[in-house]
């Protein structure tokens, strides 16, 4: 790979298209304008084409490939919205049948192709990874040589370089006061906040070079963001749990290793007032009440570690917060979000005992007891010698092949098997009257043994409770994502709201040569030229692209 020496004496790396120093085109081209992309520098991808590494490098550094990756990603993403993703189908639906049943053959195909989980599919991940790789390589491929070229650029440029700029003009013949014009031009450019470089009476005015780094900064931002998103797959980084807390109760906050507890002081739902003038019309039209607030008044508790093991847990209050949608409780990197609720969950039953026939002589009037449905007491003893025991408790009862069982610990359908001992009985040896009790259920179970039951347990009260559901979330990738996002935005703004403009004004033996280049916003450059010309009589450059009004301008593909 030979270096290329330009006539100005600068030695350029192999593959250079415009001399880094004076700008002379080193590779003769047709008459068209010079290609100013990346200042015509040699890039690795344009230079080395031999080894496998080169080939991979060249593949990913190509903007064409990059654009294809973006476009494929775009189309794939759109594909995923044709039918709902699996996580958005109604809860409890079985995806194997749901898609076909709901969307017919297409739905079935969608499911079979795995599009119901498209965004976590291996090939979608692969696309995102390819985007990341492409970003890294294409940026490296360009930023280093571009930086060098902009640093080593000389003020005096080759005439070929100047005349092949899009904005170009000469004064044709020598003018007398050329130096004076140059000075005035320089002054005007300084007013416009250009940075001026002088060399042998020639002038380079430059502004906004830093905007050239914008794309690279924003690409770095995206890369950091993607890395952050990838880290989510490490369990340490990401906790996503779910807790139910009943009104007035405490529960350990999952994911905190038993360190934190939450007490739900009260859960409430507020509806919009239908009389509210502002919303009356809308509420009338929809016809159903609209929720205004879901709120859990919560107290965060922390286990006090007093060094002694097994002394029971002592909790201290840390803080109180009304958790609402859009207003989570945050502590120690965790956030608790209001996500769901259950109103009127059964919490307590209150019972009395009564005689089936009126013949019993005992006074039963004082027998009244309450069973907590979350953690029931198993034995209830009364002053008159009666004793009632819970033999078995099914918070969420169902019969499974003739065997009673509970589905879970949530008292959605509680059934209790009671055993009643009269004062004469010995609970150790005798068998009392046994009955199964639930809401609207009261069945004697051992009447065959005892003949007819003498006593009946009667439910006289039901207490209910509200339950709130909170998501426990800790996401340690958030700071990384925030940094990535911020860098991305900075780079985007840097590259979009500032422009790199250069004006060359050269005094070649009294003949003024004027040329200009902008990486975008040529309109702004034109205005600057107009301004300078109005102050200093430099020749006003014409837009050489306007000369040939062919509207399609294809710059060279790289």
């Amino acid at each position, binding site marked *: 790979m030979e270096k290329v020496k330009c006539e100005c004496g600068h030695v350029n790396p192999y593959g250079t298209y415009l001399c880094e120093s004076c700008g002379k085109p080193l590779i003769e081209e047709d008459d068209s304008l010079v290609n100013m*992309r990346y200042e015509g520098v040699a890039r690795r991808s344009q230079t080395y084409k031999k080894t496998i590494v080169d080939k991979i490098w060249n593949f990913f550094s190509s*903007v*064409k490939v*990059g*654009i294809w990756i*973006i*476009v494929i*990603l*775009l189309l794939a*993403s*759109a594909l*995923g*919205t044709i039918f*709902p*993703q699996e*996580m*958005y189908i109604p809860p409890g639906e079985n995806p194997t049948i749901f898609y076909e049943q709901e*969307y017919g053959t297409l739905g079935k195909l969608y499911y079979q192709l795995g599009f119901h989980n498209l965004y976590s599919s291996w090939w979608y991940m692969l696309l995102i990874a390819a985007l990341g790789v492409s970003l890294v390589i294409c940026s490296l491929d360009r930023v280093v040589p571009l930086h060098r070229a902009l640093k080593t650029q000389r003020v005096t440029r080759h005439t070929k370089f100047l005349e092949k700029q899009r904005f170009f003009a000469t004064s044709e013949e020598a003018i007398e006061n050329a130096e004076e014009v140059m000075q005035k031009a320089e002054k005007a450019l300084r007013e416009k906040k250009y940075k001026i470089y002088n060399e042998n009476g020639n002038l380079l005015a430059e502004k906004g070079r830093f905007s050239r780094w914008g794309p690279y900064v924003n690409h770095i931002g995206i890369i950091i963001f993607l890395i952050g998103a990838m880290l989510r797959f490490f369990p340490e980084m990401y906790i996503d749990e779910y807790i139910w807390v009943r009104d007035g109760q405490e529960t350990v906050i999952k994911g905190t290793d038993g360190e934190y507890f939450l007490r739900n002081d009260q859960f409430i739902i507020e509806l919009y007032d239908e009389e*509210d003038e*502002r*919303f009356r*019309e*809308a509420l009338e*039209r929809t016809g159903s009440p*609209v*929720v*205004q*607030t*879901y709120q859990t008044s919560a107290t965060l508790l922390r286990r006090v570690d007093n060094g002694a093991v097994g002394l029971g847990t002592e909790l201290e209050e840390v803080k109180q917060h009304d958790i*609402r*949608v*859009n*207003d*989570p409780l945050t502590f120690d990197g965790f*956030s608790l*979000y209001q*996500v769901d609720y259950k109103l009127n969950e059964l919490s307590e039953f209150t019972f009395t005992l009564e005689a089936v026939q009126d013949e019993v002589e005992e006074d039963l009037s004082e027998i009244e007891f309450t069973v907590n449905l979350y953690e029931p007491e198993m034995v209830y003893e009364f002053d008159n010698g009666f004793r009632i025991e819970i033999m078995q408790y099914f918070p969420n009862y169902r019969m499974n092949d003739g065997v009673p069982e509970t589905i879970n610990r949530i008292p959605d359908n509680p059934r209790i098997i009671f055993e009643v001992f009269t004062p004469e009985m010995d609970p150790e040896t005798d068998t009392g009257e046994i009955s199964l009790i639930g809401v609207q259920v009261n069945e004697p179970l051992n009447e065959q043994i005892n003949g007819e039951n003498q006593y009946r347990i009667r439910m006289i009260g039901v207490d209910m409770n509200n339950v709130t559901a909170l998501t426990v*979330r800790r996401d340690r990738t*958030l700071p990384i*994502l925030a940094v990535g996002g911020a860098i991305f*935005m900075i780079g*985007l*703004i840097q590259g*979009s*709201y500032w422009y790199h403009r250069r004006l060359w004004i050269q005094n070649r033996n009294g003949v003024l040569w004027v040329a200009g280049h902008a990486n*975008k*916003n*040529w*309109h702004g450059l034109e205005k600057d030229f*107009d301004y300078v010309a109005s102050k200093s009589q430099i020749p006003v450059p014409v*837009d050489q*692209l306007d000369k040939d*009004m062919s*509207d*399609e*301008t294809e*710059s*060279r*593909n*790289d």
Partner: protein
Amino acid sequence: MVQLSSNFLLVSFFMFLAATIFFTVSITGKKFENRQGQLKNKAGLLGYISSVVAVVAAITYFILRWIAAGHAPVSNMFEYTTFLGIAMALAFVIIYPIYKNNYIGLITMPIVMLIIVYASMFPTEVQPLIPALQSIWLEIHVITVALGQGILAIGFVGGLLYLLRVIDFKKVTKKVIGVEFILFTIFCVVGYILFSISFGAMNYEATFDYINERGNEANMVYNKPPLVGPNEGVLTSDTGFNPLVSTPAIIVSNDLNTVIWSILGGLLLYGLLLLLFRKPIGGAIQPLLKNVNPRSVDELSYRAIAIGFPVFTLGGLIFAMIWAQIAWTRFWGWDPKEVWALITFLFYAAYLHLRLSKGWHGERSAWLCVIGFALIMFNLIFVNLVIAGLHSYAL
């Protein structure tokens, strides 16, 4: 207060109309050439002033309604769509002084009007906010997105202007069909509005009993004469008639019916104009645009997109993620609306790369601007109303 704010919106609408007229005059009326060789007359300035007044009135509407409702008026289809129109006008007001291009005004103003009228076809009463929307991020996110989309829409106007200016309408080519299709789509929106207003004024209503997609009996109200009926529909109202065809249950037939009416309206308008001009509509407009400098509108449209892209990204992705993290516990959930915001972002990213690195200027760039705007509209209308996800405004 709500009434007052609506009045300001009405004022703003008429000022947009005035601006349209002035910009038309500025192009067709007499003009003189100033020193810089730009074609000018007073009407352009008047048009600009009208559009500024219109934007001020529209912003007054926005603020008053905000005060009245207690939340920014960006929480349902009417409010959001209206604001998108305002944002587009605002973007125009900001960009106009840079390029002083009356043609951009000529196209932007009617589109803004169309968007605002389209918005008012949705229920306009002030609605209460559901808990998920009660956040300052609603304002921050939605306002930024709309501004970004408004600026990007100016890119579309530039692109459309470019195409109308440079395409050869003498032969019917794919390009001509493309441009005519864009115009036809706009006519369909006009058709939709005209039919909605007329049938609305008549209080037209036809009701059907039908069997819905779950196999249950349900009823459905049509606000336009039923050209297509619901699945196994039986007419239950006096007005209306039994339609020729009925749709499968999975299709929301009254919406489809509205779409058909809109297309009919568009065809009617397009056909009338075709009869009038006896050439493609684009070809009829083209002579008006002979003084447009294609390179200048090309640059303008690129500029609008370069300015709008960061704003859109900030609002539509970054603020959106921050809010989603707060409201829905995760910053990203592949909800259709989120995905379509991502698609819009990727699309404009591809546009920028094609333009910067592959030299896609001029015509190709203009087509991309049109597609980009179509994506934004798709996102607004189709994704909101049809693929509704978490973000659905339907209460």
